[in-house]
């Protein structure tokens, strides 16, 4: 039961802060091998930025930016990136997710290829975690109906 929560302070601050949250999430994903963070944490922050928009505005505003269809596609896309990099290593003759072998297809040496492989995996994980977070929140908050406002 949420009333018409038409508050200009909360809406403005959430609208201004959301891009910075998303940039920070990308930083956490991309900087994951040198500092705390990685795909899961960055994906959670990305998902939380959309959840913040749902709380400040309503579900329709977020579904205009991130539709249900796009969300499901991105949820699968992350898994495909993850499994695709792993299977590429397998096809090239190494173990599953053994990124060092990727230097045969990438124009870098084995050490760089390992770092690039890790980054690719983390991007895939981040995309999936973000979509699943948004999907879980939208389904719980609206009782599976995906209508505006919130639970009655």
């Amino acid at each position, binding site marked *: 039961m949420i*009333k018409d*929560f038409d*508050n200009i*302070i*909360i809406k403005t*601050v*959430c609208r*201004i*802060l959301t891009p*910075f949250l998303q940039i920070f999430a990308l930083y956490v994903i991309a900087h994951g091998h040198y500092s705390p963070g990685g795909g899961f944490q960055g994906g959670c922050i990305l998902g939380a930025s959309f959840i913040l928009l749902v709380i400040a505005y309503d579900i329709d505003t977020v579904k205009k930016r991130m539709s249900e269809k796009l969300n499901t596609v991105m949820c699968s896309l992350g898994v495909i990136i993850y499994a695709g990099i792993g299977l590429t290593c397998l096809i090239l003759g190494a173990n599953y997710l053994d990124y060092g072998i990727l230097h045969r297809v990438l124009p870098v040496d084995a050490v760089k290829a390992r770092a690039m492989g890790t980054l690719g995996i983390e991007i895939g994980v981040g995309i999936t975690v973000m979509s699943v977070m948004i999907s879980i929140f939208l389904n719980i908050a609206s009782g599976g109906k995906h209508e505006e406002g919130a639970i009655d």
Partner: protein
Amino acid sequence: MIILSIILIITGVFFFFTATFGLLRFPDFYSRLQATGKGDTLGSLLMLAGLALYNLSSGISLASILVSVKLLLIAVFIFIANPTATHALTRAGQDAGVEPWTKEEKSK
């Protein structure tokens, strides 16, 4: 520079202490929010400024300046987000019908 950062951090700890004291001792929802909203914001601002200064005191290089700028960015984020969160909580409490505390209520 170290002395200045120590002064800033101790002032920040003092504001955190008063905020927690207010949270524990004030009588109702709104006054507790008022204590924590103001005290936490100022306390974390002062402590982050002190930590940024302390980080610079061991030698100014590009890496240490970068770390200090990140700390100040956290401070700016808290300065925007914390009062807004307090405002949202107060509005939610008002919409849910939380009554403010008065003296008459206590004497009953």
